[in-house]
Structure formats: structure tokens, C-alpha cells
């Protein structure tokens, strides 16, 4: 186990802003793509 506490996990040894900034935008990009794909597929089926 790498982390003594959840707080240490979020701090990422002082690099929390960089690490979570990278992973956060990565997750967001995937989420936005999935949502927009779902909307597009639904619209294409309805017509």
C-alpha cells in the first residue's frame, strides 16, 4: 500500500494538482464523449 491515509492519496506527495489535473480532464473527456455518443445514437435511431 502506497498511502498512509486518503489525505496523502489526494496530496500525491505534493503533486496532487498535476496528477489530478491530468486524470480529471482525462475522465471528463471520456465522460463527455460517451454522453454525446449516446445522444447522437438515440437521435439517429429516432429519425
Amino acid at each position, binding site marked *: *500500500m*502506497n*498511502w498512509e491515509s486518503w489525505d496523502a*492519496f489526494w496530496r*500525491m*506527495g*505534493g*503533486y496532487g494538482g*498535476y*496528477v489530478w*489535473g*491530468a*486524470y480529471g*480532464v*482525462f475522465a471528463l*473527456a*471520456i465522460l463527455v*464523449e*460517451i454522453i454525446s*455518443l449516446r445522444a*447522437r*445514437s438515440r*437521435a*439517429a*435511431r*429516432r*429519425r
Partner: protein
Amino acid sequence: MNAIPRPAIHWFHFSSPPEFFRLTGILAPIAFSVAAVLGAIGLYLAFFVVPTDAVQGDAYRIIFIHVPTAWMAMFIYAVMAFWAGMGVVFNTRMSAVMALGLAPTGASMAFLSLWTGALWGRPSWGTYWDWDIRMTSTLILLFLYLGFIALHGAIDDIRRADRAAGILALVGVVNLPIIYFSVIWWNSLHQGPSITATKAPTIATPMLVAMLVMVFAVWLYCIGAALTRARALVLEREREAEWVRDLAGSAR
């Protein structure tokens, strides 16, 4: 005259829109499911199994999304250009749909590789950005994806749009070896590749395993996303076809 041998697999069979739609309807959910499982395993390894780096601290954990997105940005472009080329040469309908289905996912991967690279570059090199060949050529890759999408969208006639964008995609292929070899050909701020086909990897084994799991997760996600987009494109394009009307009639 009948000397042409019949191929074992009838590839052109899947270039018929209903067959394409049926096959990808099976493949896309499988790709997404495997991606989700691998992603969960990969993230667990990346954060809870692989130890903190002695030199870079925990900032290096960005590698587990930086490398997969950077690889996919290049790889998707190659696949997109392949389908674009097939569409230009054979005029097969599903080829252009595949190219167009891949482009936004490729653009997303190119953006993410730049974004994660910037956030890793700051703590490790002291700068978010440098006009170095690898970074600049990856930025050009992003613009090629966006240019492909924009050019296709700017032409009303779909056949002509497929053709024009397809040719742009093919021309852009020259950028790929520049990205790939940039860190070898030029003295760059960016490090050399950690993994090559010919030499032993220069990163520790647990890290390598976590990274490869993430690579496959992102790869399968990209397959799922591109196929799902291609399916929507098929329906949009074949709106007047009977099989699409039947599909809409079955109210799913």
C-alpha cells in the same frame, strides 16, 4: 476470366451498411466492457501497487494516461488514414464512415496527450510547454484531426466531403514518422521512448505492466467509441434505406 481467387473471408460483405451495423452492434459493447474492466485494474495498479518514483515522486503517475493517449493519438491517425485511403481508392461506403467515426476520438486522444504531457512537464522539466519537435508535431496532429472534421463538415455533398477529407487524411500521414522518431532524430526536451520493439524496456516491470494494462484499456475504449460513432453515422447516412426504417419502426 474467372481466375480471380475467392478470398477466404468476404471482407466486402461487411462494407454493406446493414451488415456493418449488425457486426459493430456486437463488437462495440464488448470493447467498452473489456475497456472498463482493464481500466479498473490499470488504475488500481497505477495508484495502489506501483511505488512512488525515487526521482520524480508521484508526479510520474501521469505516465499511465500520458503514454496510452499519446500512442492512441498516433495509432488512430494511422487507422483513420487507412480507412480514408480505402474509401478514396475503392469508394466503399463504410470506409469513409470508419474514418469519420475515428476522427473525434483521435482528436480527443491527441488533446489528452498534450494536456497530460503539459501537466507532467511542469513538475519534471519546469515548463508546461516547449516548441520542441515532439510536442509541436503532436499539436499538428491535433490540428490535422480537427482539420479533417472541419473540412468534412464544410462540404455539403457527402461523397465529395468523404473524398476531400480522405485526401487530407492521407497527406497528413507524413506527420506520423516525424512524431514517432522526433525524440531519436533531434535532441529534444522530451525523453526517448521507454518501450521499443527491439530493446528491453527502460522502465521497471510493475510500472510497465500497469502502463500496458492502461494502454489496452484506452485502446479498447477507442474501438468502442469509434464503432459507436460509426454506427450513428451509418443510420444518419442511410436514413432513407428500408433496413433503417425497419429499425426505427421496431422502436428501440
